Every structure is written in C-alpha cells, then in structure tokens.
C-alpha cells in the first residue's frame, strides 16, 4: 500500500525526467529553426558572400568551408581509424603497448577541444608555418575524433562473426588476407554507417577550429591550404566580434542552417543504420 504509492510516485518522476529531456531538446530545435529558417533559406543569405561591416551578408563560403573540412577530415580519419581498429581488434595481443594505446584513446576522448585547438594552432599553423588553413583544421579534428571513429570501427569489426575468420583461415589464408578480403568487406556497411554520425560533430565543432582553420573569409576556399571559416566558428565570430549591424539575423540564420545540416546527417545515419540492420538480420 505504502510501497505501491512510492512505486507510482517514482514512475511518475522517471516519466518527468524523460519528458523534460525531450522537451529541452524540442524547445531548442524549434526555437532555433523558427527564428532562423526564413533567413537561412533566403538565396541572398545562403548563396551570398559575407559582409565585414555592412548589413545583408551571406554565408556561402562558410557552408563550403564546413563541407570541405568534413570531407578532408573524413579522408584523413577513415584510413587511420580503420587501420588502428584493425590492428587493435585483429592483430594486437593484450600487453603493455595496447594498454598504453587504450589509455591514450581515453585521454584523447576526455581532453577539451580547445586544447586540441591550441595544439593544432601551435604545431600546424605556427611551427610548420602553414597559417590558418583547412588542412590544419582537418588534421586537428582527425586527432580529436580518433577515439570516436576508432570505437565505431571496432564495433563494426566485432559484429563480423568469428566463423567468417575461421573459415577463411582454415582455407589457408593468412590473417592479413582474411582481414582484407573477408573481415573489412563484411564490416564495411557498419563502418560507413557508424562514421556518419560523427560528421555532425565535425560540422558543429568550433573551439578546435577557430584558431586552426580561420574565422572570417570573403571568398570560397579552393585548396586545402586556403584559409577558411566553417559555419560553426563563423556563428561564434559573428555574435562576439563581427561589426555587421545585422549580426543577430546572420547568427539566427547561420544557426538554423547549421542545425538543418546536422539534422540531415543525423537522419541519414539513422536511415543507413536501419537499412544495414535489416540487411544483417536478413543474412542470418
């Protein structure tokens, strides 16, 4: 009787917790979209060049910067994290070195992104004299996201049944041949699905890139050594340091646009994840 009551009360409290979380999310998403979506999809905004002091600037170079940065980061991260994951899950024996590597991955996952930003700036932009450029940002983000990518890849590799490996090796294939011809191909859909979600993080990252990639540009960046200004960093710049009189609408529009990009990536990851899941169930 008393226990019943406290059980009901507890259930109610947990429902409130769950509802609160979803409400906070919904409130933020709706607020940002409602305020900015009209500006975001005005052609003069998303196809226009930014202004330094006048009102009415656009963000096309920033969108291109973001996409360019994502592509470069993926090109660098994917082979590295697949290589590292293959080593850790297929080749390495548990020992001191693996422990060191695991500890380092935990550290990379916990370090604040501003620390990565400072490191990237010091090493790439200053010591190597590259200046603010896309490739410096992409390298910084590759290190920053290494634990995320590695973990997703490792999980995809783990999903490949051990019998596949045994079958291949019993036919006389070496471990590397097995990995290359059996394990990686069958894990590939999983790897691709799992690496799409972090793209949203790369798009949204600002602290690690404002001092490596750049904050403000007027022209579309063409080569990886050009200075760029990804949208997330530009949003921050526009609200804190820019001198355009209409910075509020620029930030509103930019935030809505960035949120739409992140949502698209999120839905794509969900869609691919579901397709992949259905396929792997059908295969069993």
């Amino acid at each position: 009787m008393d226990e019943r009551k406290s059980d009901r009360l507890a259930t109610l409290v947990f429902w409130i917790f769950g509802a609160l979380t979803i409400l906070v999310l919904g409130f933020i998403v709706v607020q940002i979209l409602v305020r900015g979506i009209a500006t975001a999809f005005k052609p003069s905004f998303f196809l226009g060049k930014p202004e330094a002091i006048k009102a009415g600037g656009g963000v096309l170079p920033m969108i291109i910067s973001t996409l360019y940065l994502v592509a470069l980061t993926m090109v660098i991260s994917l082979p590295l994290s697949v290589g590292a994951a293959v080593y850790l899950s297929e080749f390495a024996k548990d020992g001191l070195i693996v422990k060191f590597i695991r500890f380092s991955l935990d550290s990379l996952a916990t370090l604040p992104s501003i620390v990565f930003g400072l490191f990237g700036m010091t090493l790439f932009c200053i010591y190597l004299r590259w200046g603010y450029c896309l490739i410096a940002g992409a390298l910084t983000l590759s290190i920053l996201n290494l634990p995320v990518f590695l973990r997703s890849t490792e999980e995809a590799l783990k999903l490949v049944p051990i019998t596949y490996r045994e079958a291949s090796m019993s036919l006389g294939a070496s471990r590397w041949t097995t990995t290359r011809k059996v394990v990686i191909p069958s894990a590939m859909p999983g790897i691709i699905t799992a690496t799409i979600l972090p793209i949203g993080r790369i798009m949204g990252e600002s602290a690690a890139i404002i001092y490596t990639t750049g904050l403000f540009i007027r022209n579309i960046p063409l080569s990886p050594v050009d200075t760029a200004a990804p949208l997330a960093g530009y949003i921050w710049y526009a609200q804190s340091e820019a001198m355009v009189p209409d910075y509020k609408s620029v930030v509103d529009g930019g935030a809505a646009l960035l949120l739409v990009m992140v949502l698209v990536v999120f839905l794509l990851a969900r869609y691919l994840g579901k397709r992949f899941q259905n396929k792997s169930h059908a295969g069993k």
Partner: protein
Amino acid sequence: MSKKESNGKLRQIFSASRSEFLVRIPLFLCAFLAFFSVLLIFLFILKESIPAISCLGLRNLFFSTTWRPNVSNPRAGSYGMLAFLSGTLMTTFFAMIIGAPLGIGTAIFIDQVAPPKIREITRRGIELLAGIPSVIIGWFGLTLLVPFLAHITGSSGYGIAPASLVLAIMVLPTITTLGTEGLKAVPAELKEASVAMGATRWQTIYKIIIPAAKESLIVSTILGMGRAIGETMAVQMVIGNARQLAFSPLERTSTLTSRIVTDMGEATSVFRSALYAQALALLILAMCLILLVRFVTRSREVTT
C-alpha cells in the same frame, strides 16, 4: 632457446607471413598515433606554457586571482588564473547538480520504465541532443536564458547561472548514453528475481539495479564532468567574460576555456604563454578525471 632454433623460428615467421609482418607495421603505427598525439599535445602545451611559469612563478600563475593582462607590455601584467579555475569548477559543479540526476533519471527511464516506442524516441532524442553544436546551444542560452534570468533576478543575466544551465543540457547526453549502457549490462535475472519476490519496480530499481550499475553510473557522471570542464563556446557566450572571481551565480566571470578563447586573439609573449598554462591546467584536470575513472573501475577489466 638456441640460436639455431630462434633463426628457424624467425625464418618461419618471415616465409609464412612476410606480408603479414610487413602489414603489421603500418597498422601498428595507426594505432600508435593515439599515444603519439597525446604525447605531442602534452609536450607542446607544456613547452608553450614554460615562459609564463618561469617568468611569473607557479604561485602567481596558478594561485592568484589577479588577471590584469597588459597588451602593449605583456611582462608588466599579472596573470593569475585562480578566478577562472574557480569559474570552471563552479559551473561544472552546478551543471552536475542539475545534469547528473536528470541524466541518470533519464537513463533509468529509458532502461526500465519507458514502453518500447517511447524508449526509442527518447534514445534518439538523446543522440540528437549530443550532436547539437555548442554554438547553437550557446546562442540559445544567450538569446533566451540570459534575458530570462535578467528579467527574474534583475541582474545582467550573465554569469555562472546561465553557464551552468547550458552545461547541464550539454552533459545530459553523455551521462544518459553511458548510464543506459551500464544499466543494460545488469543481468536480467537479478531484476526478475527481485520482481518474483514481490518487489515493486521502484524497489527493484533502487535496491537492485542502481547498486548493480553503481560503477558505470559513477563513470558516466565523471565523464559528464569532463565534458563540462572542457566546454568552451557555449559557456563563453553566456558567462559574461569578466576577469574577476565570482562569489554569486549571477556575477559575470570566466572559465579557463572561455578565457583562452576570449584572449587568444590579442595575446603575445607572457600573456599568450599564460593562456597555454591555462590549457595545461585543463589538461591536468582531464587527466585527473581519467585516473579517477580508472580508479573507480579498477576491479573491472576493460573500461571503454
């Protein structure tokens, strides 16, 4: 092992799988990159902060609250970071007070209470919340939370309070995701046994499930703290960026991260180096958290 034998073994390794041996090295290097990066990050941050440490001394740098940079003559300024360290710890503390119960409560909701459809929606929602860029949450805080706080308290609205609220939102996905994983790992038999004995759901949750998942709930909270300590842009947008120690939640102040971002653009020489020393402090804080996680999970074999 005799020399002949070991030669034989070597030859065997090379002839049977020379390609494997050759491929191991690049694969190993990929994995080793993680260790190498951490080492490089530590060395670079340390190297850049040495001028400040040697010029100002540890006491003036880490244990003073006077931050009065001098842009034209950096050596004449004072660069004590204690006020910002306190800002970081205070915002993290308040964020955890709100975020940890909410995050763990949501994790329990997902794992134990919610019906399948609602569970799926909540889980996806948390995943999406984790992906919302910090500048967007910061802008949300700046345009809604700050005016709201200003309205109800009569202060400027900037300070520790909005920063903690923004951080609470941002640590929520970390705590909930890791917490849910930990709760899922509790064997179903434990729960079934408890329910079979006539225990209510609430009794089962707080007497069986929470104790069984205690370790991972603690770890999820610690990693949430890591997120709060390191968050930069969202905090920078709402904390007010004053160079003073805050005694109340509604005073403007700074955190280590927000101070770095605010000042990096104009800093040179010792001023700049003092900012690297703040990054060093952040790095040490993060390392402490990792060691804490290791300590909590020392009885278990693997963590992440």
